[in-house]
């Protein structure tokens, strides 16, 4: 999979969160974005997800430029699956209905078939018997697994995960990370923002360090953690791996 950023600028209220980013990356399955909070990871993620458009510059995925028009962008989003940190699910719908809704109303799947797909995804993620529950009755880890099931139910090309475990306790974190690891092994393309360095090292093919409005460094996972080049990267890793 190829990603290239071509002079990408994104500013909020005069602050350039992404400042003329030029970057080319090629990786097999999984890209992990790491870096300090406020460094621009999530902003970059939102651009890659087609939720925002850059103020300047272009984002290309596999050679195709992401459109700026909301309708065309929406069509692009239909080919992706996105999971945020928390509150992904619609609280008024059961787990099953959460998965069925986009299948029926976005992808035009027939309701009966959509229900089958939703059930099989819940089963695959070991959530059988939880489908009728509303999100409030599920644990945090179960909620994130349902969210991932929803993001994958229409077989998207890319799965984008924006800090999917940051709101979870350690036990639930490993429950969700296990699942993401399985997806990667099954060949799913994944881009993920994470603070779980151990997980990034094991699972990602490529790790990119995002800070100070740009991508300071990117390298294959083993190389990135073994011998970081930039001072900022080294400092960040020292700090985060201290305890």
């Amino acid at each position, binding site marked *: 999979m190829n990603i290239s950023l071509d002079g990408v600028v994104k500013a909020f209220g005069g602050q350039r969160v992404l400042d003329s980013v030029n970057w080319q990356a090629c990786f097999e399955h999984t890209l992990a974005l790491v870096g300090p909070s406020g460094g621009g990871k999530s902003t970059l993620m939102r651009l890659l997800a087609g939720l925002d458009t850059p103020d300047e510059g272009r984002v290309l995925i596999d050679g195709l430029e992401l459109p700026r028009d909301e309708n065309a962008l929406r069509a692009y989003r239909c080919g992706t699956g996105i999971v945020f940190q928390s509150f992904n699910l*619609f*609280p008024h*719908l059961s787990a099953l209905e959460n998965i069925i809704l986009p299948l029926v*109303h976005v992808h035009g799947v027939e309701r009966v078939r959509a229900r089958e797909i939703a059930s099989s995804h819940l089963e695959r993620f070991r959530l059988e018997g939880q489908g009728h529950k509303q999100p*409030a009755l599920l644990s945090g880890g179960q909620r994130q697994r349902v969210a991932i099931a*929803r993001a994958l139910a229409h077989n998207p090309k890319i799965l984008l995960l924006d800090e999917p475990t940051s709101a979870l306790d350690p036990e639930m974190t490993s429950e969700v990370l296990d699942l993401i690891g399985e997806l990667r092994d099954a060949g799913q393309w994944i881009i993920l923002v994470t603070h779980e360095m151990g997980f990034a090292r094991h699972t990602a093919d490529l790790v990119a360090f995002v800070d100070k409005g740009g991508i300071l460094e990117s390298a294959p996972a083993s190389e990135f953690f073994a011998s970081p080049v930039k001072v900022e990267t080294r400092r960040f890793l020292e700090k985060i791996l201290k305890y």
Partner: protein
Amino acid sequence: MPNPVDFMAPGFSSISRDFPGFLLDRPSKPASPLAKGLAIIFLVAGYSLFCWLAFSKSIENWESVYEFRITFWNGWINTIGISAAALGLSLLIGIITALARRSPFLPLRYSAAAYVETVRGLPLVVLVLFGFYGVANAVGWQDRLGVGITILSLFSGAYIAEMIRAGIESVSRSQWDSARAIGLGSFQTYRFVIFPQVTRQILPPLAGQFSSIIKDSSLLYIIGIPELTFAANQVNSATYSTFESFVPLGICYLALTLPVSLWTKWIERRMRYET
């Protein structure tokens, strides 16, 4: 057993109890059913005796008022009809206004804001008088009932618009993001994600607003719409029996508003368990 006072700071016992303890203290445990029952019986008997002693001399003309029961009945039916129509219409106005207040098209947004602020800043009587004798007269609209329902709906619609707007704004940012992320369009987002959550949130205040509409419809009597208050007033003029006319009036309103109020409490309790 050590005395609990032994554990208190020296001098604590000298602090006097807050004066109106029966008013300010919270109950430490729920009252027993027996206490509740006795309190209710005692109070009903007490208040009834008071009313009897105070008013029995002035209430003796039930027969002549009873002859006007059809007038009361028609007024009551009109009040129900007006309230129901105004609720439907004001809900529609409220939804459109709430959406307009979030519109990126500035003239629409400002118009909606001006409407809401103006109407909420005026007493209903002023709106009724101005709307009927001013606007409706000027454009030659003579149908009192239609004008009355429209004015009441415009009044209530401004409040409902604010409820809906607050409801929409209380749906978290991530819900909008999630809706966009799964590929829903704007209309679909409102229909499948936002409005279902807003509805659950605003049902209790909306039920309260329905109760307000029922009560506020009484003001339409000043433009001669034969609703309940107008009917009671008519009976009073015809029979010179003030109490006998206005006691049924109050009971008729309570017969409408109390069930709505109980229903509201029921919804609130159900919502609490669900979320």
